[in-house]
């Protein structure tokens, strides 16, 4: 019988005494069993597991004699600053004329030295970035999103323009869903033409997405990569079970970035990232998509995954040191975002708020690049970012909030 009590137990003498009394106890109760608590190594490890993270606290020492205190006790607060051994890779999205493309401006993401908005300890070099969704054919959209695009949905170039010119999209996420054999089966060649048209219509960088068809996407993305040669687009996405090699090769050959998508699994994410690195892509050419679930539909998994990935990267795990893509427009899949319901109140407000809260949660967890659908979300999130980056002066006074809240 082996008994493990953890290495950090220091009072060895006392431990010995206790083990002795435990042993006695075991003897008394027969065999190696204290009724339900068998002291077998595995069992004990199991019992010990819940303790991970349970921290002891030194006694909260209060002065024994509580005498009248007249003045505030003085103390100091010093910010608990940490430094991390690792840093997230910086990815440049888009290319201007000077580096081989035709975009007016590039967008840089990543490069973090600390968790998002921990500006008391370090300033992350790049802002979070926001892309808006465009599809290569009219699609079913929530009513409150659709009303902003209804007249341009038949033309992805116009749709993209609307996003950039009217709603301030920094990046366009062009989804070539019509290539799906079950939808229109648009050929890779025709899809590439759409990419060209959108590149001409707008001067912001592009994310090029397939239809999700594992067999066809690599060919679609390859053709798109070729016509967009030099533009440093993001090819969305390479998966463990599609021909990721084809996508990686196209990215290398034509100078693009690859999204490594895995469905909520940090180990597979590491594996896929490593496979892409092995294909010769650099960390600066990979963006991680660990799956973004909507608020109420698994956002908890997404939040923890992003935090784990970002922390792992900061702690030096070079397989996870790439920026994170959060497809927060997935929020519109939640019925709370689009469905008419008396019980839930007007969906015109509820929908964009659902997307806003999903996005904020992903922002705080470590996302770097976000896909959004509703113009209101874009506006709110951009304003919020300016605040969180400390770019907006304010003389807000809150001291009198108790009396000064309106009714």
């Amino acid at each position, binding site marked *: 019988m082996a008994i493990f009590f953890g290495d950090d137990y220091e009072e060895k003498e006392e431990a010995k005494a206790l083990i002795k009394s435990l042993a006695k106890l075991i003897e008394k109760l027969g065999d190696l069993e204290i009724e339900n608590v068998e002291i077998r190594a595995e069992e004990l490890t199991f019992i010990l597991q819940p303790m991970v993270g349970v921290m002891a606290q030194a006694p909260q020492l209060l002065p024994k004699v509580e005498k009248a205190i007249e003045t505030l006790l003085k103390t100091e607060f010093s910010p608990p600053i940490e430094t991390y051994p690792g840093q997230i890779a910086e990815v440049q999205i888009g290319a201007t004329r000077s580096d081989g493309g035709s975009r007016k401006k590039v967008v840089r993401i990543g490069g973090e030295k600390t968790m998002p908005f921990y500006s008391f300890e370090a300033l992350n070099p790049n802002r979070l970035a926001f892309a808006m969704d465009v599809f290569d054919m009219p699609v079913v959209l929530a009513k409150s999103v659709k009303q902003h695009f209804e007249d341009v949905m038949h033309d992805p170039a116009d749709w993209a323009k609307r996003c950039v010119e009217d709603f301030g999209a920094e990046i366009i996420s062009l989804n070539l869903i019509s290539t799906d054999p*079950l939808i229109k089966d648009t050929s890779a060649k025709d899809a590439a033409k759409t990419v060209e048209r959108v590149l001409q219509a707008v001067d912001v960088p592009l994310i090029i997405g397939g239809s999700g068809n594992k067999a066809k996407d690599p060919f679609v993305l390859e053709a798109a990569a070729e016509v967009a040669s030099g533009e440093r687009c993001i090819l969305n996405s390479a998966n463990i079970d599609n021909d990721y090699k084809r996508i990686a090769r196209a990215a290398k050959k034509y100078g693009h970035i690859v999204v490594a998508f895995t469905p909520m699994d940090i180990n597979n994410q590491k594996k896929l990232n490593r496979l892409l690195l092995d294909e010769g892509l650099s960390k600066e050419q990979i963006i991680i998509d660990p799956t973004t679930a909507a608020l109420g539909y698994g956002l908890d998994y997404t*939040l923890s995954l992003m935090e784990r990935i970002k922390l792992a990267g900061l702690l030096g795990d070079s397989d996870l040191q790439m920026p994170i893509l959060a497809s927060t427009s997935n929020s519109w899949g939640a019925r709370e975002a689009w469905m008419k319901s008396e019980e839930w109140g007007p969906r015109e407000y509820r929908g964009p708020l659902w997307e806003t809260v999903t996005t904020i949660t992903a922002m705080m967890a470590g996302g770097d690049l976000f896909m959004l659908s509703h113009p209101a979300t874009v506006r709110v999130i951009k304003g919020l970012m300016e605040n969180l980056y400390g770019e907006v002066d304010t003389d807000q006074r809150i001291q009198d909030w108790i009396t000064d809240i309106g*009714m």
Partner: protein
Amino acid sequence: MPEKVTLLSVYRFLPQTNCGECGEPNCMAFASKLLERKFTPENCPPLKKPKYKEQMAKLIELIAPPIKEVTIGTGNSIVKIGGKEVMYRHELTYHNPTAIAIDVSDTMDDGKIVETCKAIETISLVRIGETLKLNMVAVRCASKDPDRFSYVTSLVARSCNLPLILCSFDPKNLKAALEKGQVANKRPLLYAASEENWREVSELAKQYDCPVVIFAPNNLTLLKSLIKTLQAIGIRDIVMDPGSYTEGKLLKDSINNLVMIRRAAIQRGDKDLSYPIMAVPAIVWMGEKQDPITASYKEAYIASLFMNRYADLLIMHTLEIWALLPVLTLRQNIYTDPRKPVSVEPGLRAIGKPDEKSPVFLTTNFALTYFTVANDLESAGINCYLLVLNTEGLAVEVSVAGGQFNSSNVKDLFLSSGVEKMVKHNKLIIPGMAARLKGEIEDSTNWEVIVGPRDSSQIKGFLTKYWA
């Protein structure tokens, strides 16, 4: 640095008699339950005997989480906040979901006050088998009149059974509410002791044994000083309000403050800051008349921001359900046990009274998807079979993309569930979001696959069209 607590270090403070009074077979089993937080030291009756007094005290100290748990209210009307142990939720489940209070101003007329209290108490939404509710009422002294405030406090206390927060920076208002507001023995949370009023407010907190908030806007040194002072006076139940700025640079500071405070307490073992944190998103309603839609929208996302950064208690103002729904849902998400997938048993379910002609639907075993689909089928009065696929607890869209939702899994489910013997047709309705698997599933099952609507709320209309 805090040290890790081991099973043995807990065991050594127990009576070690294995008397079984706690309901556990022995003290070691009890010790492991203590560490899992299924028990508190009070659950061991012998430990409460005078001779174990010292051991009891030591045990309580030993297993105390780095963030103190503070209880507000009494009897069946209590809220516990704090008790946190980790910085990131994947490390261990967060305890005590963020409590949400809604404010009531004493300048409202009585009828409106009663109505608001009832509304706060009755709002409830059921998601994944859990009822989401608001937790507290924050009574604000906006009248600056102690008599009015104490009257309204008692009116609120009579109108609902929720724990209260009494809000005023003027101690004489708090005093009046405690003396005459009929809440003196209900342990309301006193808001707030500040640099100016801490002497009087701490006196009240002591006299009435109430938990108290310390308010030190954007000044962590002052916050610490105030806490040190109140601790020295003998006050133990403290809640920290480092100031909820909702605008500009100051919002950035507020977010940084929350992270610094929590990190100092959990990772640096700073005892002065080891208390629950509160924030006041209601502050977005300050000033000139606010547009209620814009303000509710902003309040909801500011609340989400603070909840994502450790707020244990929020005071909000809006009662718009569309604004509260995402906040309550986010709370449910953040406080779900990260180690447990939210899933139901896969297999075949009968909805209503299906027969051999009834339709067969396919869905995933993600709990929310399953409950939503089952509920929609039931409430539409559809008699049918529902096949629940093991997608490892992932929703349809995610599991189709991720491959957990695949044709060979469906085939296995066909075999294990015996669905083929239950009906005389061979038509399977799959979720709209799994449309791309139509062909594969047809090949693997030899059934005809019909692509259903993207959302189960539309099943009824779909059936009348496609199911003769």
